């Protein structure tokens, strides 16, 4: 894109410089801007969101080669009293993204002689529309493929923050239609609401009563539970409650999204969180943002901009300059930009501040398929919580129909994630094998995979950061393996309050009609 007027020069003095546009950085940016701080928010990528971003199909296919060149730094601009810390520009490296097409540009069914009408009918039943690779590429813009997909609890901290800060006005959500689990080698709907429980024909009437009683009893006896089960697992608690195997499966692996080793109190907390979020916006506790999770950081950035932050993507960010005992400025291109505080994504953090530890990853799979993993009358948004199996970690499967505006009509976009053990393909293969088929002539009713991709997302938490008492640098961890953004919200709030302990975190932004439009204020460029 070539613009005639380019405002190349950034303003050079701010309260806060935020580097990186992941969700935590974006929330902090909005919060600082909202209380009147001057903020410069930059990213070395030419898109928002970093590892929380979403891409259309064509951009997604190019991800592998879009590795950042390391940037040379001109030390000449430093004074004797200054020390330079180059930021880590290995930033946007998704390791080994693989892409496999299971369809070609030629449709063999139609190019071959159609000798069997029978076969044709079956083909039509399996797949209402025949897709070719080129057809999908032509619809590239209809895809919004999340790197790190997130669903939000309807009463979780993230949704509450969107509402209380009035950022919710930028976004539209869809309710997850159903929550599934994998049980006894088959997909089962997890009964969420009271009506679900009573409509469920997999559990007996006695079990239904026990389940309802269990849910209502969670608020009672809390002290007793804390005392007796402090170091015991949730599974142990559920077993002691004499719940049937069925019920334990639903509660443990789906409703509380736990594992066999999850501690009792955490399991109870998760269960309550699930129950609390029911019935607010939909049948299940979960919401998914239209156009993908990648729009969420952008909404916070928008609020930040509305309150005056300066935004600049695609910036040659070199590093931080330390003078005496605090960071004084950041070198962007040839400009030295001063600020009182610096907020930095963990993936950009200079090596100097990181303890050497083994990196952790999320194994990710992305699939484009022809139909839902479980038949339904409408086009469902499905969350499948696939329990741990043998040597495999539990997997989160999010299946999106076109209604989510993340894929074209007559396709489904499926995200699978789990904490990495070996590599994405290996970690997810049992799940993929049970849910999908690669064989077009396969007459079973599993969805057919058109396209699949595997990659790893680094998930370093900030526990390995050592800031050596430099108190004006704030490090934001990258993506995590939580279902939602609850950890991101609490981290953003924590860092913001460290920076501005006496200020309110994201108070409600006024509606546009409430903004005063008089010209009483002095003319001033806020960024100067």
């Amino acid at each position, binding site marked *: 894109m070539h613009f005639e007027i380019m405002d190349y020069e950034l303003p050079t003095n701010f309260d806060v410089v935020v580097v990186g546009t992941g969700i935590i950085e974006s929330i902090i940016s909005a919060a600082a801007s909202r209380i009147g701080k001057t903020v410069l928010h930059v990213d070395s990528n030419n898109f928002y969101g970093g590892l929380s971003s979403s891409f259309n199909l064509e951009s997604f296919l190019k991800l592998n080669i879009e590795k950042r060149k390391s940037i040379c730094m001109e030390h000449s601009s430093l004074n004797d009293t200054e020390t330079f810390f180059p930021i880590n520009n290995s930033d946007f490296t998704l390791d080994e993204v693989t892409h496999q097409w299971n369809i070609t540009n030629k449709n063999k069914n139609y190019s071959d002689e159609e000798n069997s009408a029978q076969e044709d009918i079956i083909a039509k039943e399996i797949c209402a529309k025949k897709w070719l690779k080129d057809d999908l590429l032509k619809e590239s813009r209809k895809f919004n493929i999340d790197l790190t997909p997130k669903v939000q609890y309807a009463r979780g901290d993230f949704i509450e923050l969107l*509402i209380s800060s009035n950022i919710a006005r930028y976004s539209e959500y869809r309710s997850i239609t159903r929550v599934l689990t994998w049980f006894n080698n088959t997909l089962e709907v997890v009964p969420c609401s009271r009506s679900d429980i009573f409509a469920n024909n997999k559990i007996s009437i006695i079990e239904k009563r026990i389940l309802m009683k269990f849910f209502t009893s969670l608020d009672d006896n809390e002290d007793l539970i804390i005392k007796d089960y402090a170091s015991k697992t949730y599974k142990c608690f559920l077993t002691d409650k004499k719940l049937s195997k069925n019920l334990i499966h639903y509660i443990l692996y789906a409703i509380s999204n736990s594992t066999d080793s999850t501690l009792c109190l955490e399991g109870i907390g998760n269960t309550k969180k699930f129950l609390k979020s029911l019935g607010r916006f939909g049948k299940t506790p979960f919401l998914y943002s239209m156009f993908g999770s990648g729009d969420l950081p952008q909404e916070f950035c928008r609020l930040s901009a509305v309150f005056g932050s300066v935004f600049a993507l695609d910036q040659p960010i070199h590093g931080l300059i330390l003078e005496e005992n605090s960071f004084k400025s950041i070198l962007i291109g040839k400009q030295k930009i001063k600020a009182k505080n610096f907020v930095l994504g963990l993936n950009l953090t200079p090596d100097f501040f990181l303890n050497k530890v083994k990196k952790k990853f999320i194994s990710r799979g992305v699939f484009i398929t022809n139909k839902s993993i479980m038949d339904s009358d409408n086009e469902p948004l499905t969350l499948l919580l696939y329990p741990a199996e043998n040597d495999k970690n539990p997997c989160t499967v999010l299946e999106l129909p076109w209604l989510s505006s993340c894929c074209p009509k007559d396709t489904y976009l499926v995200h699978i994630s789990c904490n990495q053990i070996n590599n994405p393909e290996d970690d997810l293969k049992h799940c993929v094998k049970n849910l999908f088929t690669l064989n077009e002539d396969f007459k079973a009713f599993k969805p057919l995979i058109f396209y699949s991709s595997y990659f790893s997302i680094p998930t370093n938490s900030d526990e390995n950061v050592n800031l050596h008492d430099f108190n004006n640098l704030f490090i934001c961890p990258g993506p995590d393996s939580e279902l939602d953004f609850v950890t991101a919200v609490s981290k953003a709030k924590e860092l913001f309050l460290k920076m501005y302990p006496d200020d309110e975190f994201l108070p409600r932004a006024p509606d*546009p009609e409430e903004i005063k*439009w008089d010209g009483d204020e002095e003319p001033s460029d806020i960024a100067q």
Partner: protein
Amino acid sequence: MAHRKKVLLKVIILGDSSVGKTSLMNQYVNRKFSNQYKATIGADFLTKEVTVDDKNVTMQIWDTAGQERFQSLGVAFYRGADCCVLVFDVTAPNTFKSLDSWRDEFLIQASPREPENFPFVLLGNKVDLEPRAVSAKRAQLWCQSKNNIPYFETSAKEGLNVEQAFLQIAKNALAQQNSAVDLYNEFPDQIKLTNTQKPSGGGDSCAC
């Protein structure tokens, strides 16, 4: 589309910094003008009820919030736009030269269903100022070359042509919404988050 409940038109305004995007919007909706241009603070989107062809519609006009300054508007900004208003400053030729880039940027990011028929409207703003650097003729030629985009010469300061321009914008946005079988507007069950729901769940775990 008889079943459409309420017509909401999303209009976005694009153009270089300080061509008067916020001022135009503010003049149209609030009939106010301020020379004391405070880099678009607090300007988010403004809404106005208008009547187009006997139809009441709500026009939601989105400002760039200054994110255009370093070409850093995210793709989320462009979602679901029904009309794109391009603005240049008739006294600043560079802002006219940028129009192609803004138009391309819009088409790439918003990826409308029929790019060649998507409604743009061009506003040459600040006609109250001298010296004039881009002639009306030149602007009109550009509009002709882009499938006859409507062109208006405006002054946000004096309120000149602003009302007329936005009425045209509303008209074209509505026509676009009616003609294009716009999938996004047909999505049922979209959820706008509000806090009208009860704040606490309690025993209310029944989804009805």
